[in-house]
């Protein structure tokens, strides 16, 4: 490996180094604040070195890792998101009893796994990245060992993710056996040998790989685990599962669609389109009647993966840029929403979270403001980043003339409004305060104390809320950046 190779890998190396540093520090002395600061600092440092890595890209580091503009984009995004999640977790663990420090190690490892996943096409590296991500997530989901819902979620995720990994591994084995190819990037030149059985096995292998991806993306029909995990896991973990974990696999899928053999492309689009349409409708329809905001977010994230698939299928430069923009908007909104929920419900609650949301706007304006912005962004209302993401995806779909997908996208956007608005309006409800207007102060005991207790989260909320609105009003520079980013990609 040359100097340039190391430069290109700098962000990933820093994340890995931070994880090891934190582990070593933990053996000497447990200090929550120091660990959290080290984690955030490491992640931000990794983010800061992305431009240097970008200068060295595009580059293939060994045969396992590909560093190109898209992988660096995702690494940066994942680092920023992970730092935000770490800050939210810091406030959360301070309120909860128990050891919190290992959570940051797991968070760093999971982030590293996601970054590897987003910057490879090699089967070995895919599997390594996926397992690093998954194994860290098992522990992160069940991190509160005394919370039955969290444990249930952890077990559920463990079993289903193991099955999905098995599918993925078997699929890779089949593809390798049939074509001798061990990297997705070589698929296009490795058309399977003639003969129907061999082609069928090759196709089955690819389909099994898709199943593995589909599980991670939580698209229909592999979505069953999502609501329970989102509800049971600690909010920072849920935010991670919803954003970084899915984003990494989505980028892998994007790479795969780029290199799939021409003969298989029509089949792949049909499968992906079906999955996209099913995910949109299932996610939105199931979300309609959910009372718990975490379950609403779970089902809405299923639908959002469907929307993203519209851009993935459309492909081309506009599709690539659309995916990137949509991911940013989606990440910010999801992390913002879960951060608010983390502040509201520091202790595990089986239900009643929706009760906490009632009239929140009059009690905690910053929390409610962020939640409103996040939900409106997810709903795609103008002046939020979500709207431009939606517009971008819609443009990609229209440009590729995928009318079926575009129309179900539009229908589902209208459908989704119902549950987003239901949460938004509950924030403004004040039925009990209507009768007794002076009751407001009873709801938040010692607000000044609570405010200082959530300083880190407050900063995160302000940044996320601000960026959602800023990107909604003035997205020009980001779009220009994304367009220059994808211009180097083959498509």
């Amino acid at each position, binding site marked *: 490996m040359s100097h340039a190779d190391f430069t290109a890998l700098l962000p990933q190396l820093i994340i890995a180094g931070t994880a090891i540093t934190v582990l070593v520090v933990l053996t000497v002395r447990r200090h929550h604040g120091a660990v959290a600061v080290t984690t955030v600092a490491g992640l931000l440092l990794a983010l800061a070195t992305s431009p240097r890595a970008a200068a060295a890209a595009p580059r293939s580091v060994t045969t396992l890792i590909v560093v190109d503009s898209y992988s660096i984009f995702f690494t940066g995004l994942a680092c920023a998101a992970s730092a935000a999640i770490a800050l939210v977790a810091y406030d959360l663990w301070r309120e909860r009893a128990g050891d919190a420090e290992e959570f940051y190690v797991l968070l760093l490892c999971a982030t590293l796994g996601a970054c590897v996943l987003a910057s490879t096409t090699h089967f070995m590296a895919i599997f390594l990245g996926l397992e690093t991500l998954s194994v860290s997530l098992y522990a992160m989901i069940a991190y509160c060992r005394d919370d039955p819902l969290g444990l249930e979620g952890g077990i559920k995720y463990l079993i289903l993710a193991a099955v999905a990994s098995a599918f993925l591994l078997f699929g890779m084995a089949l593809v390798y056996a049939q074509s001798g190819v061990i990297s997705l990037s070589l698929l296009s030149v490795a058309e399977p040998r003639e003969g129907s059985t061999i082609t069928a096995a090759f196709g089955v292998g690819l389909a099994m790989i898709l199943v593995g991806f589909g599980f991670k993306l939580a698209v229909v029909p592999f979505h069953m685990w999502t609501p329970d995990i989102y509800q049971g896991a600690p909010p920072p973990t849920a935010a991670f599962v919803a954003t970084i974990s899915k984003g990494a696999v989505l980028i892998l899928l994007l790479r795969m669609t780029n290199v799939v053999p021409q003969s298989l492309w029509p089949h792949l689009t049909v499968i992906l389109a079906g999955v996209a349409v099913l995910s949109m409708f299932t996610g939105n329809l199931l979300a309609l009647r959910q009372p718990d905001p975490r379950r609403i977010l779970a089902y809405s994230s299923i639908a959002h993966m469907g929307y993203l698939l519209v851009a993935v299928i459309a492909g081309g430069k506009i599709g690539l840029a659309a995916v990137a923009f949509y991911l940013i908007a989606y990440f910010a909104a999801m992390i913002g929403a879960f951060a608010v929920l983390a502040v509201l419900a520091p202790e595990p609650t089986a239900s009643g979270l929706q009760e906490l949301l009632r009239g929140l706007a*009059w009690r905690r304006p910053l929390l409610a403001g962020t939640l409103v912005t996040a939900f*409106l962004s997810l709903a795609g*209302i*103008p*002046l939020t980043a979500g*709207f431009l993401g939606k*517009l971008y995806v*819609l*443009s990609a779909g*229209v*440009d590729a003339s995928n009318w079926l997908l*575009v*129309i179900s996208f*539009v*229908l589902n*956007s*209208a459908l989704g*409004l*119902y549950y987003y*608005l*239901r949460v938004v*309006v509950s924030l*403004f*409800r*004040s039925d009990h305060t*209507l009768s007794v*207007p002076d009751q407001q102060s009873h709801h938040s005991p010692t607000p000044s104390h609570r405010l200082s207790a959530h300083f880190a989260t407050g900063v995160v909320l302000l940044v996320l809320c601000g960026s959602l609105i800023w990107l909604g009003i*003035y*997205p*020009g520079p980001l*779009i*220009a950046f994304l*367009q220059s980013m994808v211009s180097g990609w083959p498509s």
Partner: protein
Amino acid sequence: MILSWLILSLLLCGSLAWLTGRWHSDLPRWVSLITVCIHLACIVAIWTGSVQLPGAGEGTRWYAVYERPWIPEFGASIHLGLDGLGLLLIVLTDLLGIMAILASWEEITLRSGFFHFNVLAILAALTGVFLALDLLLFYVCWEVMLVPLYLLIAIWGHERRLYAAMKFFIFTQASGLLMLLAIVGLYFLRGQASGTYSFDYLEQLELATTDPGWTRFTFCLMLGFCAAFAVKLPTVPWHTWLPDAHTEAPTAGSVILAGLVLKAGAFGFFRFMLPLFPAESQLLTPYALTLALVGILYGGLVAFGQTDLKRLVAYTSVSHMGFVLLGIFAWNQLAWQGAVLVMISHGISTGALFVLVGGLQHRLGSRELSRMGGLWSIMPRMGGWSMVFAMASLGLPAVGNFVGEFLVLLGTYQTRPAFAAVATLGFVVATAYSLAMMQGVFFGPCRQAEHVADSTRRENLIMVTMTVTILTLGLFPQAVLDTSEPTMTEVRQRVDQMAPDRHSAFNGSTRTGHADSISAMAPHNDGRRIVSDGNENGEEIDVDSQGGIP
């Protein structure tokens, strides 16, 4: 620059009103009232020409144009333009905004800061809708308007407010999304054909002239625009959100919904649908006219059958907006001008009726007609004002509604006499429900035992303003017609140029150089030029010289 400040000032002062609400609940009222009054003064100054704005080229319909880049990567810009039609509607926006703020002076006691922020945000978004010359910017304003309106209904509304607010939002947003799809479709269609990817309205108009024919694809795009405007207008059978939303909204919300939001739909037809898709829209004519008739008659009949006073007034909007739709699809400048007058006078008269109904509800605690009756003896002033606007609603001559609806009928008669004849029945229905309303509320035996106060000075002020406005519209409509005429002429020329085949389809109703003028319309306007229609040389023809209806 001034144009963007027309939008921004409302937003900024709305935020200021929100802030001041922390100190005293009356401060937001004063801040918003003064803001909208100044806004109105500015726009009137532009109208009268005492303020000259940059961008107003000679011989164009624009009073002012403002452009700066917004998202150059997409070809979207902040392109604003003020023409006669937009100006009239912004004046209406400010006027009704003031009325809405005054009407909620005593009604809204809870969180008045946030309430007034929402009101001003709606007004800002509406101003944006009337100014936007960029399709994306237009869509943004169009949709952003929904959020504060939704909150207005959902927080300060009546019993079934959540249901009504949700229904309103989903109806309008779903149709709006179809428009967004159509906008994106148009963007790529023209972009792929010409290489210029732009959301700019004027550029899209230019590009559209390169392929005058229509295809199934452009027809679908037109339907996307049509969906958004038809739901907002509203057109039967997509009107079901309207009675709920109008009934459950607070008075200010009802005034804004009926007076302004519906007008945004009609405005959309004139600004976007007809010029961008002249040929495609004409294919819709028979269906749209039929729906307009159904709306006029059905809306009126359902209004007649209501027992809820506010719902009754809400349904009259369906009926009146039917006239607007009829006028739009009459493809005749006379009818278009009439539609503009209907839009404005309906905004005033229905707004006033909602203020009165809100006042009654505030006093009686109910909107049920069965609990009213004989109120004239208790509150003669409220009764008198109601009578004025009930008469306006039924189309009594000398008020704006009459002139507008009459012009619509006159214009429609020239292209589709049968439709005009049936639509005339709308006047009968309107008379029935207006008189039934007056009878049910103010006459008959008095069922109200307790003493209730008559209209306050504040309400009298509102009513005097509205009455003067509606009478001015009825007696001197020429100022309004003159203001909107350049816009209509341009739309008309565009339709003639892009879709010339309608001459055969519409009985040669648009003979050029010919004036559809009227003398019987308004005797007090004796000898004045009323409307000059379709003379491409721009010459104006006196009513007298033409001698009546051709």
